């Protein structure tokens, strides 16, 4: 009876053990259900992360494309800025050429002005000597008039003499008186002939003076002609210089227009670049927000993983307890001997299942650890991505500021170029004026040259006529001398008449013939003198013409001087203008160099941004990959959990069977009282695993 009680107790304890096992398996089942729920939540979150990462990847692609667009715009910008730079260099060169041409022009104009001054002085001298000549010629004219009058008087006297000689031959009585009259008339005639001689000597001296002054005039007119030739040469070189100036100014104007267009295009490009960078900045902010969301989600996932870790630990504990209980069950079964054989088998199977559960939970624990590592990596990558996005945002801001600086620089350049444009237009007008003035000067100089050449010819003619006049006056002198001699002889003869009345008729005949000679001599003298008078009159007219011509030339030279002065002023203005343009273009070149520098900086910044964006892309790709890995891992966990669920269900079924078996045994034992069975028996093993 004791053994039965012990057996009953053992049975009860077995049932208690089975109850414990049942409870444990219930707990196991409910825990696995919890895990299932948590895991489906985690899967949902992973899917959400995946979607977010995909959208972030799309946005970084957009940023990449924008950055590429910016890069190409900046390349264009840099190219156009370089073009502008080159154009400005060309402009600088042109302006330098223009400045040099203007300097040359100024110098030649200065030379021309100096030469014109000299010419003016020479012309004034010529004018003065011509005036002197005119005055002396007038004197000669007056002298010759007086000579003419005197000669006419002489002729008249000689006629009277003839008449008186005739009356002498007619009346010898009146001879003495008439002889005295004749002598007084002859004395008068002698005196007047002396006067004529002196006058003609004076005339000869004056004509000599005229000849020498005309030679001087001829020389000075020659020098004027030479100077006017020089002026012509100088003016033609000025004309060439002015044309060069015109050409260079036109080229400067064209370059300015080109530079203006290019700088406007650069301003538009910079504005476009600005917009694109603004878009990039916005995209980067969106990426940042997206990454922060991803980080928050991953942290959530981390929390879930920790919860799962706790549950896995609980399951591990349950598996250990199950193992323990199964071993205890085996021990009790061994103690029960034969009756416990089936129980021992069941306990063995439960132990196997518990071991499998323990292994599965170990696997889950390992997987969860790797999952935690993955989550930490994801958080780190997100932080990296955030940092890179911040850097990119800063670079984009810098790029935006630099573009704004470029835009303002281009605006400045544009205004400077418009100023240059205006200045070159003014220059163009001024240079055209210069060209016209120089052409006028050239024409004037040619006219002056021609006029002075004519003058030279006229003066040469005058020289010739004065030579002739010299000859004529010499002839007149000779004639006068002969007259004087003849008159002296007449005096002698008349003086002899009073003494020798007898020789009167022969003497009077000789006197008559001498008087005729004198008459013809006086006639020829008169003719010569009238010739001389005509020649002098012609000379007078000629010198008056020359004087008028010289005055005209003087006026032309003074107008030429004025034109050259104006020319000089105009070229000085042009010089000033070109200096201004030089300064402005140097400033513009400086500004453009700074712009090129800024554009190069922006290019660098943009390249950095592009690199950063591709880094972000890489990080995101890795994140997505990691998330996919996490998803795979979670699916593995899921399958493990379902196997654990199955195991738990099997344990439950076994336990139910066991319980029913025990209850059957118990009832059987109650229904069979008195039957004692040897309990402590060595049992043969069942080889069921």
């Amino acid at each position, binding site marked *: 009876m004791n053994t039965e009680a012990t057996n009953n107790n053992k049975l009860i304890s077995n049932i208690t053990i089975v109850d414990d096992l049942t409870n444990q398996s219930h707990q196991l089942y409910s825990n696995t259900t919890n895990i299932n729920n948590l895991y489906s939540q985690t899967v949902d979150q992973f899917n959400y992360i995946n979607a977010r990462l995909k959208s972030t990847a799309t946005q970084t692609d957009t940023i990449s494309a924008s950055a590429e667009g910016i890069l190409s715009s900046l390349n264009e910008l840099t190219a156009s800025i370089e073009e502008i730079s080159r154009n400005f260099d060309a402009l600088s060169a042109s302006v330098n050429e223009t400045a040099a041409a203007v300097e040359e022009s100024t110098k030649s104009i200065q030379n021309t002005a100096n030469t014109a001054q000299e010419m003016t002085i020479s012309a004034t001298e010529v004018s003065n000597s011509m005036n002197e000549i005119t005055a002396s010629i007038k004197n000669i004219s007056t002298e010759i008039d007086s000579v003419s009058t005197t000669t006419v008087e002489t002729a008249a006297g000689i006629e009277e003499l003839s008449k008186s000689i005739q009356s002498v031959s007619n009346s010898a009585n009146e001879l003495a008186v008439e002889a005295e009259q004749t002598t007084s008339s002859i004395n008068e005639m002698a005196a007047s002939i002396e006067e004529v001689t002196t006058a003609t000597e004076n005339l000869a001296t004056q004509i000599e003076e005229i000849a020498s002054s005309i030679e001087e005039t001829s020389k000075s007119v020659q020098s004027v002609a030479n100077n006017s030739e020089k002026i012509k040469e100088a003016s033609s070189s000025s004309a060439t210089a002015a044309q060069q100036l015109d050409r260079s100014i036109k080229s400067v104007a064209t370059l300015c227009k080109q530079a203006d267009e290019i700088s406007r295009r650069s301003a538009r490009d910079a504005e476009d670049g600005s917009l694109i960078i603004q878009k990039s900045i916005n995209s980067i902010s969106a990426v940042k927000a997206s990454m922060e969301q991803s980080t928050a989600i991953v942290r959530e996932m981390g929390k879930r993983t920790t919860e799962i870790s706790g549950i896995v630990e609980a399951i591990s504990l349950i598996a250990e*307890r199950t193992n323990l209980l199964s071993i205890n069950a085996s021990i009790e079964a061994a*103690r029960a001997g034969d009756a416990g054989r089936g129980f021992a088998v069941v306990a063995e199977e439960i132990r196997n299942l518990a071991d499998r559960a323990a292994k599965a939970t170990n696997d889950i624990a390992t997987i969860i650890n790797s999952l935690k590592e993955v989550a930490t990596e994801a958080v780190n990558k997100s932080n990296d991505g955030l940092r890179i996005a911040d850097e990119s945002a800063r670079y984009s801001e810098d790029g935006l500021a630099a573009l704004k600086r470029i835009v303002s620089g281009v605006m400045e350049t544009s205004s400077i170029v418009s100023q240059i444009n205006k200045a070159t237009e003014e220059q163009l007008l001024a240079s055209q004026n210069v060209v016209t003035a120089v052409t006028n000067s050239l024409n004037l100089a040619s006219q002056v040259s021609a006029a002075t050449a004519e003058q030279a010819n006229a003066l040469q003619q005058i020289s010739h006529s004065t030579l002739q006049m010299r000859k004529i006056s010499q002839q007149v002198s000779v004639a006068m001398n002969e007259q004087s001699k003849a008159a002296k002889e007449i005096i002698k003869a008349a003086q002899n008449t009073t003494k020798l009345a007898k020789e009167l008729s022969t003497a009077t005949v000789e006197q008559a013939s001498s008087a005729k000679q004198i008459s013809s001599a006086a006639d020829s003298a008169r003719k010569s003198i009238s010739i001389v008078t005509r020649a002098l009159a012609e000379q007078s007219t000629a010198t008056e013409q020359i004087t008028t011509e010289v005055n005209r030339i003087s006026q032309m030279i003074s107008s030429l001087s004025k034109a050259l002065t104006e020319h000089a002023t105009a070229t000085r203005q042009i010089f000033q203008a070109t200096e201004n343009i030089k300064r402005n273009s140097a400033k513009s070149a400086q500004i453009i160099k700074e712009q090129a520098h800024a554009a190069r900086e922006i290019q660098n910044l943009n390249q950095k941004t592009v690199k950063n964006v591709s880094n972000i892309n890489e990080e995101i790709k890795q994140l997505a990959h990691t998330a996919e890995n996490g998803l795979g891992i979670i699916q593995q966990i899921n399958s493990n959990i379902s196997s654990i669920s199955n195991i738990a269900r099997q344990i439950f079924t076994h336990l139910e069977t066991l319980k029913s078996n025990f209850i059957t045994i118990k009832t059987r034992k109650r229904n069979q009282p008195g039957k004692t069975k040897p309990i402590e028996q060595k049992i043969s093993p069942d080889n069921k695993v």
Partner: protein
Amino acid sequence: MPTNNIQQNSKILTEPYIVFQLGETTYSINCKFVQQLEMIEHITPVPNAPDFVDGVVMSRGQVIPVINLRVRFGLPKSQITLKSRLIVVKYQERTAGLLVDSCKEFINIPEDTVKPPPQLVSSVDNGFISGVTMLGEKPVFILDVAKTISELNNTNM
């Protein structure tokens, strides 16, 4: 977990043993001495106890002393984990709990495979080993429960 693959012959006598680990070594105890297995929850320390006695625990209404087998065999102490087990043994009205690293197997060992322990080992282990057997490739020492527990008396527990 494989058991010995022995033929189903009622003539071959086997005994059920439970197998436990202590460090790298595998030991076993005959089931007739074993009451049950427990997990360690809390050991109440007892002052003035010998060093291999960690304290006492409550088990099914009984107060059981806890013998740390690692200390008993001269191994360094180790932390109590989820796998640590308390083997409640009973010998001649004396009950004690053996604290081991893990206890997972329940096998039937045929009697003819049990050999006496090698001389060197028995002297080192103070005679706690009563025999040795093979479990696949592994040697398994068979613990002499009487000696393990009886030493308690000599040391005035």
